């Protein structure tokens, strides 16, 4: 048991910070991350504080961990039981909050909205327990690398639960935190290993230079970690996926629990293309699944039996559809993208024939198609079907006889505690209408007239939300609520009903007639009501803002209140851009092209100007680099060497030979041959050069040589001022430039050759180790 007390404060803080940063990745679970982040931060602070205090008391590891767990309990109790000290009532309250959170997490798909019962208790408790583990490993036991494992759990939880990749920003933050933990622990260890030579033993283990190294390595490693995965091919061998599609890759649109996923895919996700259909006419209303049972909280698919009904070949005739109803047959070829992660296979409402392969099976009663086994997904596959489109007649439907008893009993079942308002409203809306069908049409019209469409509402169809939705003042919602509410109200009116989930209407693929694409935002829900002789008939209660058309058979004469104005005959032709009032553009494809075309002329001008500026800037770079180098050089601690290096660069700039490996004196003798009088108005094109042409500069050069010799060879060098040296170098520079032609002078000023030389560094004066007596021996290592 390694217990190093009194030193863990920085490490505990770093560990807390790291856990919290890793928790940022959990923000995909909820719409508003601050519902759990702030509470988690407070809880982590509590754990760290308890850890620091108990470790200071030198308690055993087990006691430290136990105290931290107790701290977590008290904290959770304080947060959701609202008292400092747990009382039976507060414990119950806390347990309730936790239970609710667990239920929410099971019912809702991520991200959970703010109106749903909060999942924060669950997330915070889990996070705190994980942090207790992190703290125990990293600080109490001093095993920081091991504590990376629970941190990895925190970080990768979103990947394993919602298959959503974690943002690289979160990764960088969490990685930085973890590296900080490593550094803190290591500097702690080093500090305990020995005393710092520079006397800074107490506060910091690493100084500025060490810090620079740390930052360099840490940031380079993190940058690599962010950048490299982009080019690393993920083989995606699908080793554990069996026959089904394997990848749980990014951004997939899931349809596992159809209703729960609907809102998320519809609202939160990107508008991914999911299905591609080849058909002669625009295919609308593709059904993915039908939800047959309502339990008071939500619609669900109910109990199904798929076994043995392989969905390849002819389908059984639709339930309740009389053979004499006239019908059309349309052939659709469908294919799904790899983003379409659904257990259900989209088909038309009435299927004549389906070729989907042996993985798929249909439900005999509902006639929707589901994977035959677990983990069969509809992504990246193609299938064909023959859709049957019955032409219902308004009159025939109004005279439909009651449904058979079993069907009626099953599809009109409502929970006993259904709010009476639902039934009351249903009857109010349909008062005085003779047939069930007319009542159903009246309901649809009522929804389309009295309600408005918005996606910014709470999802779900639980009792309270349903009443909220139906009451005056509410009446705002999106397709799921319309479909659910109408189906429930139809059941209240004894009309068998169910909710279908699927796709509303596709976008045409530009340039390819007969090709249509369904994307994530086309997901839709609608009610289907049963009428004997016609079977399951689709209705469309969602207002025109979303679904413009109502089914034609609901528009007949005497259909109660007038149909929705926007859904009138004027809009029978489907427009390519649906949903203008929807805040999102469903088809952004065509927009950018026109923009670029319009601004073409201006762009050219702009680019040319930019290019010219760039070339000019590039031309200025060498001179600027040269001057920056000079400036930096004079800041060094050896002015003589700086002057010498500057001279060498000047020689290179002026194209004057610099004899390699010679003493300063010999070099100067060579250099002085190129000296000339400073360039002026009367300078000849080819000026004379030599020592006598510029005696002043030659003397300056001699002085520089003397200084260099002092610096290099004197035991205790006496050096002139930096300012003096600079002056001398300037004299030499002018003398050198004076000996050049005009072009060469220009080149030396703006395109100095020394910029590309590698030898511009001022050589440091070698450090000598001086011994005090003849006994001392200088020992070297390195």
């Amino acid at each position, binding site marked *: 048991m390694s217990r190093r007390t009194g030193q863990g404060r920085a490490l505990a803080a770093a560990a807390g910070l790291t856990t919290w940063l890793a928790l940022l990745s959990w923000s995909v679970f909820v719409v508003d991350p601050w519902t759990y982040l702030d509470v988690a931060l407070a809880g982590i602070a509590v754990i760290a504080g308890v850890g620091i205090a108990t470790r200071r008391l030198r308690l055993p590891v087990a006691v430290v961990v136990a105290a931290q767990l107790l701290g977590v309990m008290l904290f959770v109790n304080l947060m959701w039981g609202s008292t400092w000290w747990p009382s039976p009532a507060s414990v119950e309250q806390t347990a309730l909050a936790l239970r609710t959170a667990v239920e929410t997490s099971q019912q809702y798909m991520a991200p959970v909205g703010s109106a749903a019962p909060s999942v924060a208790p669950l997330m915070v408790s889990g996070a705190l327990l994980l942090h207790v583990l992190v703290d125990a490993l990293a600080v109490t036991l001093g095993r920081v*690398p091991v504590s990376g494992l629970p941190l*990895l759990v925190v*970080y*990768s939880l979103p*990947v394993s639960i919602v298959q959503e*990749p*974690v943002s*690289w920003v979160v*990764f960088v933050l969490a990685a930085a935190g973890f*590296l900080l933990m*490593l*550094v803190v622990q290591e*500097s702690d*260890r*080093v500090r305990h*290993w*020995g*005393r710092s*030579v*520079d006397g800074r033993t107490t506060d910091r*283990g*690493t100084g500025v*230079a*060490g*810090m620079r*190294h*740390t930052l*360099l*390595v840490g940031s*380079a*490693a993190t940058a*690599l*970690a*962010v950048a*490299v*995965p982009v080019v*690393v*091919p*993920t*083989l*995606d*061998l699908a*080793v554990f996926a069996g026959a089904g599609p*394997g*990848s749980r*890759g*990014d951004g997939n649109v899931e349809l596992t629990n159809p209703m729960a996923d609907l809102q998320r895919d519809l609202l939160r996700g990107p508008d991914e293309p999911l299905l591609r259909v080849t058909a002669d006419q625009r295919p609308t209303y593709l059904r993915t699944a039908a939800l047959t049972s309502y339990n008071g909280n939500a619609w669900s698919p109910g109990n199904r039996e798929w076994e043995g009904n392989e969905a390849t070949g002819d389908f059984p005739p639709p339930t309740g559809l009389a053979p004499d109803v006239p019908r059309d047959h349309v052939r659709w070829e469908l294919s799904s993208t790899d983003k379409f992660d659904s257990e259900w296979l989209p088909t038309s409402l009435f299927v004549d024939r389906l070729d989907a392969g042996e993985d798929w099976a249909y439900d005999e009663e509902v006639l929707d198609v589901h994977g035959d086994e677990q983990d069969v997904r509809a992504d990246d596959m193609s299938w064909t079907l023959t859709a049957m489109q019955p032409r219902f007649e308004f009159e025939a439907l109004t005279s439909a006889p009651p449904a058979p008893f079993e069907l009626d009993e099953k599809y009109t079942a409502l929970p006993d505690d259904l709010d009476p308002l639902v039934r009351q409203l249903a009857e109010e809306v349909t008062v005085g209408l003779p047939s069930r069908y007319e009542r159903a049409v009246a309901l649809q019209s009522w929804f389309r007239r009295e309600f408005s469409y918005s996606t910014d509402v709470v999802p779900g169809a639980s009792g309270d939300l349903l009443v909220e939705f139906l009451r005056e003042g509410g009446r705002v919602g999106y397709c799921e609520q319309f479909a659910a509410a109408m189906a429930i109200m139809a059941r209240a009116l004894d009309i068998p009903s169910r909710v279908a989930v699927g796709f509303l209407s596709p976008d045409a693929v530009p340039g390819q007639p007969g090709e249509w694409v369904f994307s994530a935002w086309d997901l839709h829900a609608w009610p289907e009501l049963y009428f004997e002789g016609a079977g399951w008939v689709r209705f469309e209660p969602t207002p025109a803002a979303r679904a413009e058309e109502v089914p034609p058979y609901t528009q007949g004469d005497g259909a109660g209140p007038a149909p929705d104005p926007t859904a009138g005959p004027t809009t029978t032709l489907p427009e390519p851009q649906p949903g203008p009032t929807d805040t999102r553009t469903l088809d952004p494809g065509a927009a950018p092209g026109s923009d670029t075309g319009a601004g073409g002329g201006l762009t050219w001008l702009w680019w040319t100007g930019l290019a010219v500026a760039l070339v000019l800037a590039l031309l200025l770079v060498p001179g600027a680099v040269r001057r920056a180098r000079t400036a930096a050089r004079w800041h060094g601690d050896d002015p003589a060497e700086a002057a010498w290096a500057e001279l060498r660069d000047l020689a290179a700039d002026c194209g004057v030979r610099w004899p390699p490996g010679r003493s300063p004196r010999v070099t100067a003798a060579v250099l002085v041959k190129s000296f000339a009088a400073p360039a002026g108005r009367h300078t000849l094109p080819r000026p004379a050069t030599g020592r006598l042409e510029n005696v002043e500069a030659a003397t300056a050069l001699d002085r520089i040589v003397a200084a260099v010799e002092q610096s290099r060879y004197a035991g205790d060098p006496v050096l002139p001022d930096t300012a003096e040296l600079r002056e001398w170098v300037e004299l030499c520079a002018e003398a050198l430039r004076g000996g050049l032609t005009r072009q060469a002078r220009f080149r030396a000023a703006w395109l100095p050759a020394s910029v590309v030389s590698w030898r511009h560094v001022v050589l440091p*004066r*070698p*450090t*000598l*180790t001086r011994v*005090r007596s003849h006994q*001392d*021996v*200088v*020992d*070297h*290592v*390195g």
Partner: protein
Amino acid sequence: MREGLLGLTGRGRAFLAAGVTAVVCAVVMGQPTLTRVGILLVALPLLTAFLVGRSRYRLALVRTVTPQLVSAGQSATVRLDLTNEGRTPTGLLLLEDQVPYVLGTRPRFVVDVMTLGWQRRMEYVVRSDVRGRFEIGPMTVRVSDPFGLVELGRTFRTTVPLTVTPRTIQLPVVPLAGAWTGSGDNRPRAFASGSAEDVTVREYRHGDDLRRVHWRSSARAGELMVRREEQPWQSRATLFLDNRHDAHRGHGAGSSFEAAISVAASIAVHLSQRGFVVRLVTADGEDPNTVWHDRASSQNTAPLLEALSVVQGARRTHHDATWLSEGGSTGLLVAVLGDLDAHDQPMLRRMLHHGSAPLAIVLDVDAWAGRTSRPTGAVPTVGLLSGMGWRAVGMRPGDSLPALWQELGRRAGSTGPRHAAPVDVAR
């Protein structure tokens, strides 16, 4: 880079292994999130190894120990002058001086920032309660990194010796015989006039002046011979220490052997201070560093103490008697003896003949072993030695050495010196 990779610590290797595993798993299973973690874990040790392995530094170290000769229990200061003669190294430098554990904890220094021309002086103190000769150094240098992933070890080469001499006790001045007596080489001899053959020569001994080599005799004898010449007289003393293993009991610092060495050291210092030139003789024979030299200064006790600090127990049953056979007097002979048996009697007798009324301090070695508790004065060998003509006292663990020395002086007075007057040259 290669060097840096070889220097990966356990943590570094674990990171590398975990990272590679993670990347492989991520690639196989298509998890980009895991790839990131894996690449971070791989990149960290590799980058660190690259940077640390690339760091070129050149450190110069000058180590000084003052004083180089300390008595047990005294402290010496080690001064380290460290200079960076190379470039700025990347990484932390962990310096550790290899000091024998007897001298205390190993001093450790951490250098995190080392600029060009960096110079620091570090000092630490060593202290030993055990006599001996210790090597301080060499210093090891480990280059580490702030994440603890790489550690490269390098070592300086030089060491500096530190001699810890036995503890000595100041002894009272007692009348001692033997001054001016021991003078094997020193006795003035009148050369027989003229004849080179008459030159008295002896074998060359280490330390003899080459100018005294008598080449003609050397040629005849086949080995180097030196002339015996007239020299100033010295008061000489021979300190005999019985360092045979069998003669002593006990182990380590509490053994009778260490006590004997301490006694011998005290006597040696005392005699030197009184003007004697002291040589040390052990069961292995004459100690080469303390032979009587012509110009040896009696005041310099350092060679004696140094010799005593490295004396080890000898695994032999008999004393080496060659130093007696060389002839001449032993000067004042003081023997520090342990257990004696019948074999030793001839040796003791010979010593008696060479010396003048030799003194002996006999350790009751069994008392150090904790076995017996005889009453004082009943150390059997004391009686034996007294019978032979030695002046001897017995010593037990708790006995005060000055008191015993005084007692010895009294006995010397009672038996009477051979020479007329004991000369006390102590200042």
